[in-house]
């Protein structure tokens, strides 16, 4: 009995050693052919693809952030514009073909119209955020899962057949702008997309530049913006910052949405006076005290962005990121992290609604009749600062 056990164990050990040796030799002597041209054997391809589908299926049910309204046209447009920058190089866009080289990748990246398949929004979110190992599909270049939803909204629109070639062209159209390198491309989101994206004409150039460098160097999270900021040199970013701060591309967006006056009053009250948990926003972000004669100073311009007239959805997103400790930025960003840590969801909504409804030039509430009227091209910062 004992003798037999010993024989079994001995045989297994020898077989194991031979197997390890064979495997080691395959790696060490380059016996496995990694040629993309040769490809996988069909059973290997089947195993890999099934593993991928099952893996997504197992993990995609509970996204870290709940989906916003995926039918929001602004979100679809934002997703389309980012897709064109970061994804189309492999997956192409509706109405266009993949390049010949991309088609010879192995595994071959599917054309976006096939890629969307019948995945659910949660599954699409998982795939775009996590990427797929050993397939060439990269992970989202930021630790922030919420801005992936814009891409998902766009992919959903493709899934539902709402993005034929003409619509695709509209979605990513660029204005003919007389600006530095990349200006028209940046303005594609910052001046054309009607929500979720900050308008830049109200910021100082130093602030925009600091934000771009923070995105570029990974100190501020956003898959969309870190992609954009990594496409240009720091010098080009500086030029763009100056051009946008001077009002180079005034937003075409509509002015603030109509809101319950009570909500606006709560926002105004909190912004101007603060509470025992929340500092008064206006102390740093205006309008008001900071600009008063004799009280204000030039010493920190660029650190604190003015917020009057900023996009409401953008403000809500950023305040949540601040509150949750995700948002980074310039050297003074710790001030805002502490300031926002006790904000409630209701307070965030009230503050964003109030700030979004202000006229950036005067700091006064925009007139009621103005709501939903297109914002005229505003001359750069005439009454500000």
């Amino acid at each position, binding site marked *: 009995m004992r003798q037999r056990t010993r024989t079994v164990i001995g045989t297994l050990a020898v077989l194991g050693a031979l197997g390890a040796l064979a495997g080691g030799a395959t790696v060490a002597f380059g016996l496995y052919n990694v040629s993309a041209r040769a490809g996988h054997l069909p059973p290997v391809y089947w195993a890999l693809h099934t593993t991928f589908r099952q893996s997504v299926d197992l993990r995609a049910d509970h996204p870290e952030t709940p989906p916003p309204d995926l039918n929001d046209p602004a979100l679809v447009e934002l997703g389309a514009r980012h897709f064109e920058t970061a994804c189309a190089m492999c997956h192409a866009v509706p109405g266009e073909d993949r390049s010949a080289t991309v088609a010879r990748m192995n595994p071959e990246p599917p054309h976006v119209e096939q890629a969307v398949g019948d995945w659910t929004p949660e599954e699409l979110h998982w795939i775009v955020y996590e990427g797929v190992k050993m397939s060439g599909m990269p992970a989202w270049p930021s630790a922030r899962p919420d801005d992936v939803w814009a891409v998902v909204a766009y992919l959903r629109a493709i899934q539902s057949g709402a993005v034929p070639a003409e619509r695709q062209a509209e979605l990513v159209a660029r204005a003919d702008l007389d600006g530095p390198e990349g200006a028209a491309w940046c303005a594609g989101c910052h001046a054309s997309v009607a929500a979720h994206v900050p308008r830049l004409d109200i910021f100082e150039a130093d602030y925009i530049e600091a934000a771009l460098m923070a995105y570029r160097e990974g100190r501020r999270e956003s898959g969309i913006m870190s992609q954009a900021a990594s496409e240009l040199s720091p010098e080009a970013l500086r030029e763009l910052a100056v051009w946008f701060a001077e009002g180079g591309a005034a937003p075409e967006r509509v002015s603030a949405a109509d809101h319950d006056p009570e909500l606006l009053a709560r926002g105004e009250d909190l912004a*101007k*006076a*603060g*509470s*025992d*948990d*929340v*500092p*008064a*926003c*206006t*102390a*740093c972000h205006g309008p*008001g*005290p*900071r600009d*008063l004669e*004799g*009280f*204000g*100073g*030039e*010493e*920190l311009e660029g650190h*604190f962005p003015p917020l009057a007239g900023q996009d409401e959805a953008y403000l809500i997103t950023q305040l949540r990121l601040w509150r949750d400790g995700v948002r980074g930025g310039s*050297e*003074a960003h*710790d*001030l805002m*992290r*502490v*300031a926002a840590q006790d904000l409630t969801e209701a307070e965030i909504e009230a503050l964003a609604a109030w700030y979004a409804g202000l006229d950036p030039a005067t700091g006064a509430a925009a007139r009621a009749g103005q709501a939903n009227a297109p914002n005229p091209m505003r001359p750069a910062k005439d009454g500000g600062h």
Partner: protein
Amino acid sequence: MTASLRAETTGPRPRAPRRAAARLWPLAALALLAGCEGRQSVLVPAGEDSRVLGDLFWVMLVGAVLLWIGMNGLFYWATRRSPAAHSQYLANWLVILGGILFPTVTLGALLVYGLSIMPDLRATGDGPVIRVTGEQWWWRVEYERADGSTVTTANEIRLPAGVRSTFLLDSKEVIHSFWVPSLGGKMDMFPGRVTEMTLGPERPGVYRGQCAEFCGESHAWMAFEAEVMEPAAFEAWLEAEAAEARPPEGALAERGRALFFAQGCGGCHAVRGTPAVGQVGPDLTHVGSRHSLAAGRLGTSVEDFAKWVANPGAWKPGAEMPAYAHLTDDQLGAIATYLEGLE
């Protein structure tokens, strides 16, 4: 700790170190008592309440010492002086008198005494009403004035001598305890529930208060100064405290004010008479005239203000105020000069 340190440094003589150390024990105890030099001591009362509590302490201490001596005397007598078996008669009476009657009478008397002083400690106030809110880790202080207005300050209590002031105690996040040992007993501060206590200070002077309930990282740094003043001086102080902040004097202080607003300090701090209306942190309207900065942590020199603003967490771990490490020494000095001038 100071006691043992002192014993080590003043004590050992080469000849008989062990004995010398033994002889130094009473000295060490005295050194410990020296810590109670009066700014924060129940044993050096400066008010009605602390006097009553001090008396209670001494009565209890003397009683306990007498009982201890009596008990040990009995042990000594029973084991050494008269070790033989006692008669049944003596043993019975020893149990009845010493075991039942004596403790009942003694404890009863102490209880009656103890209960009799409670009304003194709960007497209603006839002086100012002061609302104190415990924050992490500082004190929000509001004086309610006769005309219905309130005067907000922080980290310092001033009281008129000779009247009983009323304290309405509250807390923001966690339980704190309000205690000025020289003036009276302590009272817990609960979030969402106002507790009330009164204090009747008698002897003018500056005393120290301390949070007496563990409340987080910087609990030990949560102190304040309590100044007892002559009534007229108190009225004058309250009048001055109610006034708006004075404008900065000199170019440096003016630059400090500009920086104070450019840096958004007014988002959290109020300086009455300026656009700074924040309510998160202490009111700074007259911060320059306080005895201490950051709830007893630092003094109020320009240097103290500068090093606090540069990095509050270094002085008070966990403090909510963020570090202004991005400011240059120059800028910090200007802000500190402005704040120090807010008298």
